[in-house]
């Protein structure tokens, strides 16, 4: 047992924290992350939790590496069960290489044969320190030892975390961490040799979640109005903006329902605000009439749609990429829209501010498609840059005789704001003439449809092409979109084949058909990887460009892709038909 840790595969270390809701997993995670980041390691955490407030069994997976990681792995090097049931919850993922560190008394019975247990009586040590609540800090101390880190230089992180609490609490926590560390330090327990380098760069990077990246992006995009109705996993963006609302002068309104939310946001844009809504599938369903309204009014609009598995209530706290076609075709009638789906935190930030800018510029709704996995995952990422943010506001003052829907070759009529000038700004959900008044004239109708659709073409000026990640050739092309990127990239790295490239779409609509066909024409074998059951993006690609796939890897069990598992699947796909 004592040397099993030292045998770990050196590329990275994977820790799984497991416990009931409300039992302090977050505390352990947070402290570890602060300490590891300041040590210069690359980090990733992903969350998996049940739809409940207390109890149940949740887990957080932490990966530590010398190079960027941003996907979970199915391998567990160190399991930390904070509660009874924690080991059973993940027992199928344990191997003889896993070390379980926990209380023998509470989880001993759950340990499968052949799996090592490092018995550290967290709660007993905590109780000795003064209170059972310190057991999370005890665990942190023990983990620091196991990871080969020093205690003293890192204690200040613990102090900072508890700052604001009474001095005594801070003191006891520091003590608890020390005792946790000491509980192993004297025992001859082998410590992990992290054989990958830490890097001073990482210390200067950001460490944040998808929800935070998108929220910061919204702020950079000038968002000053958010009306939404809480819905997992989209609420994080609402509460982030609420937390920083007074700092940035944002109107934050929790609407009575999603219908009110989207109609408010459209009203706000009309009056000159930069408004967004954040929601998930069921709420988006209720917003589709409003989405169609934005299309007709030619109103800019930003919708953050954080997906979770459906249909209906589905799995409220799990992940899926199942609402792509709904995002694309939701809303009655035909009108242009743009859909972004970030694959990295940096894209989360960039696409969120671009969403405001292109929505405003082309007067179309823009949907940012994320999912629970993306929202809840954290990792280190280079500091977001504000230089390339488009700070222009695309509305104009008006003069008498102003017509909101003036015909224009590119489909874009100057957008006035009521009260800003002598013109009248008249917008209408019926088909309308250039002034915004109801018309039923069939010629005007055709012109207006063409005008609206023309904007989609015009928006290709700001098109974001798919990114190709290639180490050698694109003989095999793995195609993915949105949050699947991280697992796919890592899976291909794991395979270590230089004939296999990754093509990732962060703008999923509109597409550049010629470009897609060009990429496909170079590949012998194409494989689609999506987090849904029917291959939605594959169908869209085929419908828009005609391209076909040789293989499809689809996942729809509520969990995110794990890079190692995905590597195996890609590998067997590549073997097929050989």
């Amino acid at each position, binding site marked *: 047992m004592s040397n099993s840790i030292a045998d770990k595969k050196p590329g990275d270390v994977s820790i799984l924290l497991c416990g009931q809701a409300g039992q302090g997993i977050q505390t352990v995670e947070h402290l570890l992350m602060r300490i590891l980041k300041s040590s210069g390691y690359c980090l990733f955490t992903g969350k998996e939790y049940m739809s409940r407030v207390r109890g149940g069994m949740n887990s957080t997976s932490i990966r530590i590496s010398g190079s960027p990681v941003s996907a979970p792995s199915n391998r567990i090097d160190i399991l930390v069960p904070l509660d009874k049931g924690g080991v059973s919850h993940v027992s199928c993922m344990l191997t003889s290489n896993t070390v379980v560190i926990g209380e023998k008394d509470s989880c001993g019975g759950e340990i499968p044969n052949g799996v090592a247990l490092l018995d550290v009586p967290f709660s007993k040590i905590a109780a000795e320190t003064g209170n059972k609540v310190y057991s999370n800090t005890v665990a942190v101390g023990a983990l620091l030892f196991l990871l080969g880190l020093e205690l003293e230089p890192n204690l200040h992180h613990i102090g900072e975390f508890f700052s604001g609490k009474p001095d005594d609490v801070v003191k006891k926590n520091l003590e608890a961490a020390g005792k946790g560390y000491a509980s192993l330090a004297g025992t001859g327990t082998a410590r992990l040799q992290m054989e990958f380098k830490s890097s001073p760069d990482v210390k*200067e*990077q*950001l*460490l944040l979640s998808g929800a935070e990246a998108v929220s*910061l992006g919204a702020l*950079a995009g*000038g968002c*000053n*109005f958010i*009306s939404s109705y809480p819905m997992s996993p989209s609420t994080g963006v609402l509460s982030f903006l609420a937390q*920083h*609302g*007074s*700092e*940035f*002068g944002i*109107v*934050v*309104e929790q*609407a*009575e*329902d999603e*219908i*009110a939310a989207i*109609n*408010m*946001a*459209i*009203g*706000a844009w*009309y*009056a*000159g*605000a*930069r*408004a967004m809504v954040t929601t998930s599938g069921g709420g988006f369903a209720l917003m589709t*009439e*409003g989405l169609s*309204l934005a299309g007709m*009014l030619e109103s800019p609009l930003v919708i953050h749609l954080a997906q979770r598995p459906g249909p209906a209530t589905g799995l409220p706290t799990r992940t899926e990429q199942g609402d792509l076609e709904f995002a694309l075709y939701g809303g009655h009638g035909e009108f242009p829209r743009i859909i972004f789906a970030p694959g990295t935190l940096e894209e989360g930030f960039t696409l969120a501010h671009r969403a405001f800018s292109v929505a405003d510029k082309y007067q179309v709704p823009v949907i940012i498609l994320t999912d629970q996995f993306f929202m809840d995952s954290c990792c280190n990422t280079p*500091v*977001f840059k*504000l230089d390339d*943010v488009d*700070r222009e506001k695309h509305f104009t003052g008006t003069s008498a005789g102003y017509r909101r829907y003036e015909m224009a070759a590119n489909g874009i009529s100057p957008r006035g*704001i*009521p*009260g*800003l*000038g*002598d*013109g*009248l700004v*008249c*917008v*209408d*959900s*019926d088909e309308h003439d250039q002034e915004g*008044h*109801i018309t039923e004239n069939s010629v005007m109708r055709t012109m207006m449809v063409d005008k609206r659709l023309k904007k989609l073409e015009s928006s290709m000026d700001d098109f974001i092409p798919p990114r190709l990640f290639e180490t050698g050739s694109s003989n095999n092309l793995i195609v993915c979109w949105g949050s699947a990127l991280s697992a796919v990239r890592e899976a291909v790295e794991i395979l270590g084949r230089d004939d296999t490239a990754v093509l990732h779409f962060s703008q999923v609509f509109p597409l550049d058909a010629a470009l897609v066909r060009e990429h496909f024409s170079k590949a012998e074998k194409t494989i689609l990887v999506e987090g849904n059951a029917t291959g939605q993006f594959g169908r869209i690609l085929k419908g828009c460009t005609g391209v076909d796939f040789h293989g499809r890897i689809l996942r729809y069990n509520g969990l995110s892709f794990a890079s190692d598992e995905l590597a195996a699947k890609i590998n067997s796909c590549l073997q097929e038909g050989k």
Partner: protein
Amino acid sequence: MNRFDMELSDIAWCPGCGNYGILNVLKKTLDELGIQPEKMVLVSGIGQAAKIPHYFRTNFFNGLHGRALPPATAIKASNPSLTVIAESGDGDMYGEGGNHFIHTIRRNPGITNIVHNNMVYGLTKGQASPTSQAGFKTPIQVGGVFLEPFNPIAVALALDATFVARAFIGDQDRTREIFKKALMHKGYALVDVFQPCFTFNKINTFQWFREHTYYLDDTHDVHNRNQAFQKAVETDKLPLGVFYENTGRKTFEENIQETGKAVLPLHSQETDYGKLKDLILKFK
């Protein structure tokens, strides 16, 4: 002629409809109050009543059926210097839009909510509306309406709306007085206006309203919510006038500025990129 008049080739309302009266009275009231077309926004939903912005020289937002109040609230919140009126039919405001009616009242935005109450769905050709009276027969309610009619006055009072009134467009002068009070009220003001529909409501005609209404007199205390409720649930004759007024509550716009710290109007706000940079760096 007043500043809200526009040249019209064609109005989609039936000749003699009560909607014309509301259009005229509203234009006149706004004119008298010195409001400028460029500084106000008329927000409406969908229905016969909701076509009113097309006959009005002003900024307008003619949105979705049932959804006038959310954009109206947002427009006022984004730019409180605008006069904002949300106007639609009874089906639009109390049927499809019922949830917004309730929660907008809770917000108390500084908007005037005018509801053309003809007790029927006009545009879709004569189905019952929430305010249709028991026994009213339509192509859908073939045996007559049997749902309890929606009482907007009583519900608004239950929600402690800050201004609650009812008018009858058969009396344009007094309707104008009521509109004026509503427009001058600081928070949310409801004016439910009886507006006979010639074509699809042969029961609740001008004559019927004349016979079934009376004006609240000076003995009515507009600051007494319980008394207002008692008046609101009368059914023999339906009272007209201002039922209730409460000037003590803050508006939504005031609250978002004071409690929420938003700086209005939003269109002239600029993002503080310095602050944003600091915020980003906090995640280091």
